[in-house]
């Protein structure tokens, strides 16, 4: 099943909002890279550049009280779900104002107050936890939907298999979003998955397996909406594969010599941000290039604020390491 953009066209406000969200992620990640090189971010980093349409497409189809579980590459997931850019940036800087009080770092950003679980850096391990969250929503009767993001590489983990099976037999409100960016670190999908699409694996669980252009935010949003509706109606999980590409290294200082410059150029032409801005200005003609530039300025202001906030926030005291091993109350 291939989903294309819905007939009902999105409004100008919606479109500009999506663009805003995606650009925020892009700029956040670009700044992270620069700040890392300046030595201000002590952490390792897995950036989300190129995949913005997935997180934003998915999260824009959710209710605020729905849940998201991210991966080792979670900044995009967290920003799209509404975690403040200040608190993420502060976390990366290792400051106490960080969303995890500087205990987590890049790979564990999250904020349960906005439905974003602390991200999980063990590939695939978030999937069964997402199923538990969905089970809980069903038991509590809240109709909340839970999202588990994972990569095509992660789809080979046993944890993901167990999770999809359990979600299927109990018809739980959970969406498995596979971000197929063609590589797991240096490893191309063709070497580690024998089927054409990760979505084909849905057949093992009797759940819908949907493929979508992961660089088309409207397509991702639409596919997610359909799956979310199913889930809220108690019809169970969906495996949604978003075909995309990481327009950056796997982690800091990866020269990407395991892939060709041609392939990268091809995908740069499909840059989800460029595509959306073209769609807005040229196809839908709902905003001008100047208005798009206006969004960029807003984003820049948010970014600068986040960086300032992070810079000015205090570092934790060393002994704070001893806190929060166990729950200490709100």
């Amino acid at each position: 099943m291939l989903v294309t953009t819905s007939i009902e066209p999105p409004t100008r406000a919606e479109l500009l909002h999506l663009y805003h969200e995606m650009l925020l992620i892009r700029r956040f990640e670009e700044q992270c890279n620069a700040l890392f090189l300046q030595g201000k971010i002590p952490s390792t980093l897995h950036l989300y550049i190129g995949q913005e349409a997935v997180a934003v497409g998915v999260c824009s189809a959710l209710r605020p009280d729905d849940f998201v579980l991210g991966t080792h590459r979670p900044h995009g997931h967290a920003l799209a779900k509404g975690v403040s850019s200040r608190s993420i940036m502060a976390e990366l800087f290792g400051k106490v104002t960080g969303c995890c009080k500087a205990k987590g770092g890049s790979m564990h950003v999250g904020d349960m107050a906005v439905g974003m679980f602390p991200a999980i850096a063990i590939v695939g391990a978030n999937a069964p936890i997402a199923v538990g969250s969905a089970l809980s929503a069903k038991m509590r009767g809240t109709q909340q939907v839970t999202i588990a993001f994972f990569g095509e590489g992660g789809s080979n983990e046993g944890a993901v298999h167990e999770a999809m099976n359990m979600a299927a037999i109990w018809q739980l409100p959970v969406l498995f979003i596979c971000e197929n960016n063609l590589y797991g670190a240096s490893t191309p999908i063709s070497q580690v998955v024998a089927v054409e699409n990760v979505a084909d694996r849905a057949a093992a669980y009797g759940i819908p397996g949907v493929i979508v252009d992961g660089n088309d935010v409207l397509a991702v949003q639409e596919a997610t909406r359909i799956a979310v509706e199913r889930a809220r109606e108690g019809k169970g999980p969906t495996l949604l594969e978003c075909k995309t590409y990481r327009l950056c290294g796997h982690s800091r200082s990866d020269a990407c010599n395991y892939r060709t410059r041609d392939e990268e150029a091809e995908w740069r032409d499909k840059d989800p941000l460029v595509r959306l801005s073209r769609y807005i200005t040229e196809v839908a003609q709902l905003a001008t290039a100047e208005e798009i530039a206006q969004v960029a300025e807003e984003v820049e202001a948010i970014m600068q604020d986040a960086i300032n906030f992070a810079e000015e926030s205090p570092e934790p005291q060393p002994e704070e390491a001893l806190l929060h091993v166990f729950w200490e109350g709100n």
Partner: protein
Amino acid sequence: MPEMTIAEALREGIREEMRRDPSVFCLGEDIGIPGGFGGAFTVTLGLSDEFGHDRILDTPISEIGIAGVAIGAAMTGMRPIADVQYGDFLFCMMDQLANQAAKMTYMSGGTVKVPLVMRAPVGSTRRGSQHAQSLEAFFTHIPGLKVLAPSTAYDAKGLLKSAIRDDNPVLIFEHKLLYGSKGGRSEKGALTAVGEVPSEDYVVPIGKGVVRRTGKDVTIVGKLLTVYRALEAAQELAQEGIEAEVIDPRTLIPLDKEIILESVRKTGRLVVVEEDNITHGWGAEIAAMVAEEAFFYLDAPIKRVAAPDTPPPFAPPMEAFYVPSTARVVSAVKSLF
């Protein structure tokens, strides 16, 4: 007060907590199927009659999934009690327990809680190497987990209730030979740890050990089945004029260090008894802690009585050699005088 086996006491504890709090539920393999086993050792037998199959939730054979589901549910308002048929299978879900459940509160800077309970039977019972291990030491070494090891029916119910109400991940280790399960699930060589268990609500606080026998000459620390081995040894020793104090920590993490230290300060001698392999076992920490914190009170080397460093063997003569006997406890104590 009614008398109960440990299996019954656990069952009643689950029942009372599930009645009290709608967010409590059980999940695991073969725990609620009508006509089935009620878990590998009958603890959940009959509970699905009262609570239905949504709250006594039978799962696929998917240990990673069971643990992960418990974590996700616990983080979003539920209080799952997960069941693993044999403790040995905890290794299959080790990542979920060690990297996820135990670290989630910490990694989030204290902003999320993971109130889950995981119950696991341990002990060697003629089933061979993969259904026999004592795994406590693997989990007492993971910051963020609480670890309980009840040896009586009273403690089993009271600690289980504390565990369910606790806002952290709690592992409960239960010994197969102490359950007192009946019928097809009765175990050869089992002790009947039947005891009085109040019908009214009570809890046993996490973190408090208990002196099972007082004595002035030597301190013996045991857990689960080896508490009974220690008590038998103490009786024998008494006949030779050695009065042993027997301590059952009940909670392994957090440990009631003071109850052990106080005893050692009095007796000057320590023997730790456990069923697990000796090297890098649970007893090593007890010995190391005392060797640091009560060193100047010690009159003799600290002895550990434990299984040798082999996987659990199958055949009864070898298994009997593997599992620490009362006689071995007696002779370890005597070697200190």
